[in-house]
């Protein structure tokens, strides 16, 4: 196949369209893969056993087509304490503020208290155990959603596994390209979740420049939800796009229905880049928790993981009782264009058609 959407990334992966879906939902991943795109399944919070089971589930449904697994390799690790020690560090003033929010918005108690003791282990040992599953299963692509994958490149390449690195700064891209990373995902500030502070339109060409001559494809991430975004990314020199928010409200997505409705209604400025959920800055949809913690006179946000310990009951209660008015989810600024609950195949098709329209328009001008 040739045409404006056929890029080196398509050849590298054997895919039809240079569109990568990042998703935590296996059904979305399979639908995108079978429609000619590529999917990377986020497995950071899963046990090695669960990851192995998910890999098999996908393999059984994609007829040999390639796919990827994304893990969050830590890049810095502070001191660890027990959950009890951490809970004891939360000031009473912050507990009182959390209770005020609970009363003001009638936030329900979770059906089952979040098991804080399973939160431990987000460290090197756990990450290595997860990586071993990806290696054992010979997953075609391993994507590192945060830390540098440089240390595992040799082993991965011996096993025939491509390694992708997601970066938020050009200097991270340079370092990973020099180390031998196979594909770089340049993620802009527009993106959902953790991002750098450089906008997509600024970081993508800089990373493309850094990769020039290396043969390393660059994928643009952050705010990509239409064919126009895809065409623009290719015009910036990228070889494809990385999409996440686009699939959250798809028909196959396992996101619960009230949250899908919230996402379909959300505008760009309903996403907010804040540290009040977890103590880490991340882009999520705005909810009453944000409103209260960003209000004048609110207590200072606690360091990680204390703030997450504080917000855990709010988050879980909103999910358990499907309270759309309370829910929050990681979503990028491109959420404005996510307005219908469509099948993943149609979303992919719309993206392709939209991009081809742009190229046709330029060709006929």
């Amino acid at each position: 196949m040739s045409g404006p959407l056929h890029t080196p990334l398509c050849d590298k992966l054997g895919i039809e369209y240079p569109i990568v879906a990042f998703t935590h939902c296996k059904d979305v991943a399979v639908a995108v893969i079978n429609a000619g795109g590529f999917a990377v399944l986020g497995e950071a919070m899963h046990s090695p056993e669960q990851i192995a089971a998910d890999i098999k589930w996908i393999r059984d449904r994609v007829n040999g087509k390639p796919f990827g697994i994304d893990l969050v390799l830590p890049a810095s690790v502070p001191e660890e304490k027990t959950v009890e020690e951490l809970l004891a560090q939360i000031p009473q003033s912050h507990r009182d503020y959390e209770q005020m929010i609970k009363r003001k918005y009638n936030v329900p108690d979770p059906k089952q208290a979040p098991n804080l003791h399973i939160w431990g282990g987000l460290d090197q040992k756990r990450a290595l155990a997860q990586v071993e599953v990806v290696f054992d299963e010979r997953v075609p692509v391993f994507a590192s959603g945060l830390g540098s994958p440089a240390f595992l490149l040799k082993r991965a390449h011996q096993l025939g596994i491509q390694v992708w690195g997601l970066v938020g700064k050009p200097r991270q891209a340079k370092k990973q390209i020099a180390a031998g990373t196979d594909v770089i995902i340049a993620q802009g500030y527009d993106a959902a979740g953790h991002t750098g502070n450089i906008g997509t339109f600024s970081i993508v060409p800089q990373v493309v420049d850094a990769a020039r001559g290396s043969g390393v494809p660059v994928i643009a991430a952050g705010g990509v939800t239409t064919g126009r975004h895809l065409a623009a990314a290719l015009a910036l020199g990228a070889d494809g796009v990385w999409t996440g928010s686009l699939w959250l409200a798809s028909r196959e997505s396992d996101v619960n229905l009230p949250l899908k409705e919230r996402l379909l209604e959300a505008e760009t400025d309903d996403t907010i880049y804040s540290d009040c959920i977890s103590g880490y800055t991340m882009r999520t949809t705005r909810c009453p928790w944000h409103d209260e913690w960003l209000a004048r006179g609110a207590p200072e946000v606690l360091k990680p993981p204390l703030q997450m310990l504080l917000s855990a009951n709010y988050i879980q209660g909103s999910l358990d009782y499907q309270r759309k008015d309370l829910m929050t989810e990681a979503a990028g600024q491109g959420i404005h264009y996510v307005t219908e609950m469509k099948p993943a195949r149609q979303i992919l098709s719309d993206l392709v058609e939209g991009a081809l329209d742009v190229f046709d328009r330029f060709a006929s001008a």
Partner: protein
Amino acid sequence: MSSIGSHRPEEAAPGAGYREGFDAAMSGRRAECDGGKAIEGTHFAGRQEFAGILTGHFRDFGDYPWRWYLMTELTHRPSGYAHEAVWCDSGSVILEGDE
């Protein structure tokens, strides 16, 4: 894991899952760390940036090995970061003058 509140890390406990060492060539080097980790209780991650001095102490995890350096004398740390030191993945460390 040992405390990193002091500049000298504690020795690895049996079963700690890492090997410790000291790299004199890295000791005293000024560096930045494009850090971060997964966020407890979620499937999200968060970035954190640090700048400071590498002590030269390192920890190697796994067979690859995956090397981590101890950074102290922090001149830049995330808001609310209460510790005086941080362990940084070697692949995420940018040494001054190398950028």
